[in-house]
């Protein structure tokens, strides 16, 4: 039945290590108290990044996914971890952005004196918990294990939203929690039906056994619905803008850049890894339709925002819509499916880095000027040149202009939509680009105009530099070689087969 499933491939232990490092960090931080939590987190970031790179190296070297059966007990009774091309890429991106956010925020959440402080302990533990949860999401191969990881991610992200305690952040956090819990329970119900139908929750095993029955469609609908609520796809996007806009800058960067990508990643796992053998054409079109609506609605709402951070948050709603175009554009085993797949992954990465950079820059700006009202940012570009350069370059990627990862992603999407004859998807891609140009223009016009703006405090150079490095990575993604696109195909099943 499951002939050929080994219990582990070389380097498999790295997968467990990648999860256990941040977990150990959480335990240590909680035990030693808030005074050391920051040091523990910052100290672990190089190790976490090294493990992520090592995993990517192993996957690339062997050309096959890295596999580890925990406890030496393979599925279906045991739990397995499996890192393929997209897992490795997301692990590296997570390491990079979380490290950047950690160093950006090290002053704000540093332990001030001998006594432990609330924000110091909380922030660092939550950051490490996000790292652990995302790692499991990217390498997990068991649907219930992924449920526990999703819950961990929710419990880590929600208190980050309200970490500064203002009432509007509390309301936003509560709304986020309710949407996320609704999403989790819907996901769990789908998992129950899958288990009831096939007796296993391991992704490769399920893919071998799954048939297009009503039970499977119900389960898939429930899981997808839950994940869409967590990814804030239109029309379930209402919780995102207040939550991401009111969180501290480092938290917003992680929330918009990484956390929403986690549940999106699981949607990919469901439709491209568990159910590729099923006729998914209509579902793909429906998801693409919702994505298009998100692109346009998010873009239009972003144009109307008065606050910079809210504008960036609505931009996230819009860019998340692009992600769902991967479903119609990468479906099946056609020649253009590879292009669609590359486009989707490139969009995930480019948006993660660009958005994180923009939120970090908005944080520098708000700290320096004292507010983030766009209309009052007259002449700000002159006093904060590096920050506005970062914002402008981030906007370049969001608009989809060369050279940037965003351009690469949208160009590939257009290619795939033309090659597959699905011309309709080019409409939201182009409209979204125009809308992005519109809201970037809104940000940059007052900033570049003549005028004096009063500064409350000097911007921190290291924070500006961190944001700049992130946006340069987003741009550098535009030059990704073919090897990169081959890499993210590793382990991806084609339609009609299970995962290798």
């Amino acid at each position: 039945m499951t002939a050929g499933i080994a219990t582990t491939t070389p380097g498999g232990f790295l997968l467990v290590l990648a999860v256990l490092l941040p977990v150990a960090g959480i335990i240590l931080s909680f035990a030693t108290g808030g005074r050391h939590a920051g040091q523990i987190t910052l100290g672990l970031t190089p190790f976490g990044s090294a493990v992520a790179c090592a995993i990517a190296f192993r996957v690339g070297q062997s050309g096959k996914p890295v596999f580890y059966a925990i406890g030496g007990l393979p599925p279906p009774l045991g739990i397995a971890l499996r890192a393929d091309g997209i897992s490795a890429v997301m692990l590296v991106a997570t390491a990079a952005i979380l490290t950047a956010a950690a160093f950006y925020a090290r002053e704000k959440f540093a332990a001030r004196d001998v006594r432990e402080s609330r924000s110091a302990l909380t922030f660092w533990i939550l950051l490490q918990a996000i790292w652990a949860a995302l790692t499991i999401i990217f390498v997990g191969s068991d649907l219930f294990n992924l449920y526990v990881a999703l819950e961990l991610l929710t419990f880590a992200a929600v208190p980050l939203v309200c970490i500064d305690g203002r009432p509007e952040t509390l309301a936003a956090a509560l709304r986020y929690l309710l949407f996320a819990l609704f999403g989790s329970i819907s996901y769990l119900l789908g998992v129950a039906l899958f288990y009831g139908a096939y007796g296993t929750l391991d992704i490769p095993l399920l893919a071998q056994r799954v048939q297009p029955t009503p039970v499977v469609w119900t389960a898939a609908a429930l899981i997808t619905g839950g994940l869409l609520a967590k990814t804030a796809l239109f029309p379930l996007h209402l919780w995102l803008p207040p939550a991401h806009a009111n969180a501290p800058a480092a938290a917003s960067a992680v929330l918009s850049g990484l956390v929403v990508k986690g549940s999106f990643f699981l949607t990919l796992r469901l439709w491209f890894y568990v159910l590729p053998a099923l006729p998914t054409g209509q579902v793909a079109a429906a998801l693409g339709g919702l994505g298009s609506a998100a692109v346009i609605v998010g873009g239009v709402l972003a144009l109307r925002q008065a606050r910079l951070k809210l504008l960036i948050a609505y931009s996230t709603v819009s860019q998340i819509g692009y992600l769902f175009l991967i479903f119609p554009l990468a479906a099946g085993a056609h020649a253009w499916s590879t292009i669609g797949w590359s486009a989707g992954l490139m969009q995930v990465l480019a948006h993660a880095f660009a958005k994180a950079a923009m939120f970090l820059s908005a944080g520098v700006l708000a700290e320096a000027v004292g507010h983030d009202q766009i209309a009052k940012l007259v002449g700000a570009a002159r006093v904060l040149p590096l920050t506005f350069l970062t914002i402008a370059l981030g906007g370049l990627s969001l608009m989809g202009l060369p050279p940037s990862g965003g351009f690469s992603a949208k160009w590939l999407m257009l290619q795939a939509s033309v090659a597959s004859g699905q011309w309709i998807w080019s409409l939201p891609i182009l409209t979204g680009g125009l809308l992005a140009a519109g809201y970037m223009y809104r940000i940059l016009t007052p900033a570049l105009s003549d005028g004096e703006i009063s500064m409350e405090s000097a911007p921190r150079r290291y924070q500006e530099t961190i944001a700049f490095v992130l946006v340069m990575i987003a741009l550098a993604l535009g030059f990704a070689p073919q090897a990169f696109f081959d890499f993210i195909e590793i382990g991806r099943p084609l339609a009609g087969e299970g995962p290798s």
Partner: protein
Amino acid sequence: MSLLPFLDIGLAFLVVTVACSTIITRDLFAAVVGYVAYGLLLAFVWIRLHAPDVALTEAAVGGGVTGVLLITAGKRLAAIKKAAPEAHPTTTLKLLTGALAALLACALAAAILMLPDVPPSLAPEAAAAASGPGAGLGNPITAVLISYRSFDTMLEKVVLILAVVGVWSVGADKAWGNPPAPLGRPGPYPAMVFLAQVLVPIGALIGIHVFWVGADAPGGAFQGGALLAAMWMVAMMARLGEPPRIDARWLRLALIAGPAVFLIIGLAGISIAGSFFAYPPGFAKPIILFIETFMVLSIAVALPMLVAGPPSEGNRP
């Protein structure tokens, strides 16, 4: 016995009716009490489903501790301010939502009825593994939780820690380090004190017993830990003990004891038994009991802290 089908139908009907009343009633307190009753009835349903472990957990955590959480929440909410009159939803919205909910329930019922006639199951694999990684354990659920799917359980302990951190983080900055508000009313309340003095020792013994026999019979770390947690909460409600300061060293260590021991033994597995989270053959049961002891400690401390809430600023009654 021909009476059982009627019992089952009656039980199912009762459960749904009590749940209905929980949703429909206007008073928050009545709804929470209804929910606790519902939890206890559900425990009976679980027993009819041959799931005594789950019945214990549902009665202890799902009905009991959640009930205490919600009642405490209702009391604290009422104490802060008079509730403003709520906007009641319009009849159209009620009808629409009712239709949607009914549709979903029917779709779900249909899916359940369409589950395969020959149900797939991992029971054979679990029975087979009882001679290997689950050796010595008479309770297959404990084997699944702490041996076959131990990664899930360890992660779940981390989730509990995160919940505690999240609950604490909601407190005010200047209250950090203080203990949470007391769980009970001020002043000596003799009936409560008497109940606590009698119940807590007995309950604690039962809790330890339920944990210890959980390796071979229904029970285990979660159930035993929940009982111990309940006993601590009873003591706090009778004001025989107060919630501790949240920066107390012993509290922090007790909370992370479970996941830490799990993590260390899991990591050690690679040198001792060849794989992370593997146990050396023949030593599975003692190692599992060792891990479970610390898990019981963590659960017994975490659940009351979650109910007690964030650190409070002053002396609140």
